[in-house]
């Protein structure tokens, strides 16, 4: 792997959305509500790796995924692709970027145009990006269907004729049609049955090693992320709390939030189950962020500094980063919960 230059780097990206601006607030002369979806997120994606992004719903992981493919523009900071700021891409450069960084969407029902057949969906991508001369397009469509293990007669059918898992595979085929380097998968399988999840995930893994793809895998299912990721970033309230290798995170998390998140995941073995409450308190509102650590209100290890000073992401061990004032958190013995942790052996 080429470790010198990350293929995608996220430098201090913030994204804010304007919330509802009620008449009351207008009359009172108050400013509109601002939702802080991403706060100063810094992250690197290396060529050929799978980076998992996990967090509770509402933590900004989907917003981050959308910033990576430029469906959202960052308000502060920059997303760089091979060192170049993607917000500056225009014309052919932008099209080349679009071709090389593709996205697969969460909703298998909304992400395919219901009025286009599979061959029209794939053919359009091939045609617009001039991936093949026109006479070779049908052959390439057949190859792509083969690649995602759909039958050849799928080409002439409409999305509503397929199951959720098959549609996600059509989405994968569409992304692969333009031969991208990076695939951003936003909750790829969270809308699917568990049995179908395994199929789709294993397909993605095989395609990744076969086509040397870099994958950014956004999910809330920890076991799934552990199964497929090389590195994992844990997000909370629009911030990255910890970046760690997959094994590092799941054996010895370096941030109290990561630890709480892992403990909150239900055990598969009923004998191992306990009724220990992992976290107390509610998520602070992203409309009104606390000045210190965003996790301070729920953290069992909180002390005064946490409430006033926001910790920044800083290096821990090898390839480990955490945003916590407790720099030696998680250094001793790894916890023994769920020794394999594998969902799909």
């Amino acid at each position, binding site marked *: 792997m080429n470790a010198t230059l990350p293929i995608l780097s996220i430098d201090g990206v913030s994204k804010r959305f304007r919330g509802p601006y009620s008449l009351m607030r207008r009359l009172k002369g108050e400013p509109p509500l601002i939702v802080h979806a991403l706060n100063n997120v810094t992250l690197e994606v290396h060529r050929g790796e799978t980076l998992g992004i996990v967090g509770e719903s509402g933590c900004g992981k989907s917003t981050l995924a959308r910033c990576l493919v430029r469906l959202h523009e960052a308000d502060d900071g920059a997303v760089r692709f091979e060192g170049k700021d993607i917000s500056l891409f225009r014309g052919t450069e932008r099209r080349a970027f*679009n071709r090389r960084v593709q996205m697969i969407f969460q909703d298998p029902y909304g992400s395919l145009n*219901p009025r286009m057949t599979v061959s029209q969906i794939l053919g359009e991508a091939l045609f617009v990006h001039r991936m093949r001369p026109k006479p070779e397009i049908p052959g390439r469509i057949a190859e792509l269907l083969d690649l995602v293990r759909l039958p050849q007669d799928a080409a002439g059918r409409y999305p509503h004729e397929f199951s959720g898992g098959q549609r996600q595979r059509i989405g994968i085929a569409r992304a692969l049609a333009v031969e991208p380097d990076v695939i951003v998968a936003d909750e790829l399988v969270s809308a699917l049955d568990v049995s179908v999840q395994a199929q789709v995930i294993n397909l993605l893994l095989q395609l990744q090693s076969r086509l040397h793809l870099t994958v950014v895998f956004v999910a809330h299912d920890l076991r799934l992320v552990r199964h497929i990721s090389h590195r994992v970033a844990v997000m909370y309230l629009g911030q990255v709390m910890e970046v760690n290798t997959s094994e590092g995170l799941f054996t010895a998390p370096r941030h109290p939030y990561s630890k709480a998140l892992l403990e909150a995941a239900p055990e598969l073995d009923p004998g191992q189950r306990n009724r220990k409450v992992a976290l107390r308190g509610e998520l602070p509102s992203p409309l009104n962020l606390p000045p210190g650590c965003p996790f301070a209100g729920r953290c069992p290890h909180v002390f005064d500094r946490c409430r006033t000073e926001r910790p920044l992401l800083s290096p821990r061990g090898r390839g480990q980063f955490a945003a916590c004032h407790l720099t030696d958190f998680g250094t001793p013995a790894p916890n023994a919960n769920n020794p394999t942790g594998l969902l799909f052996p």
Partner: protein
Amino acid sequence: MSADWAAARSAFRLKALPRSLVSGGVILGLSLVLALWPSLLAPYDPTAFDYSALLAPPSWAHPFGTDNFGRDVLSRVIHAYTIDMQIAIFATIGPFIFGTIVGAFVGYAGGLWEAIFGRIVDATITFPFLVLVIAIVSVLGPGLGNMYVAVGVVGWVFYARLVAAEIKVQKRLDYADAGRVMGYTPLRIIFRHLLPNAITPAIVYWVTDMALAILLGSSLGYLGLGAQPPAAEWGVQIADGKNFMNTAWWISVFPGVAIVLTGLGFSLAGDGVAELLRVRR
């Protein structure tokens, strides 16, 4: 054997069509035949006077009777199909195309464009449709051509509003984002992806609007602002007969029945088209 049956059934798909579309289509098909070849079925010249049979009641010679000039009402009703079907199409196709294009852009662009468009809609729907059309016709002068212009100037707004609302829904769906991630141009996303999913309400409205256009054309004909006498047009005919309602009801009633029947055909067809174009999920 069963495969043969399946093939035969798929070859004969008429049964699979919505029933309302079939019945509406039959009515409109017959109307179109009458509109294109009226002289085939009309027994008399629609403008020929016959002073020997003034205000004659329905009989075998004149099944719908004659009017105060001795003109055969049946022949006039049949010949009026030509003008009224023309009105149905020409008064609506311009607004449909223009309104759809404007609506697609406005719905996609949003923001300031949507605000400007919203004010145009408000200004238009404040006035009753007929009053606005009459005002425009009275400026331009009576006649069919000017009527098309007047209906077009007002009518496109309704199509644009329908399409814009639907595009606004569609542009937020993931498949639109997938197009953006693919680097497709906004034009391609609007017309290739969003519009086919957004145009159905506009098409359904278009079909029913043709019925409304016939009613409007007849209203204007009745008021002397649309088709001009002695042309055979249902509204003109009803106006001609209004002084003889007590003595010769057939002059006005048969053109009225023709309007209702054609309107019914368009409404049924509109329902059927809606059923046919419904997206399966």
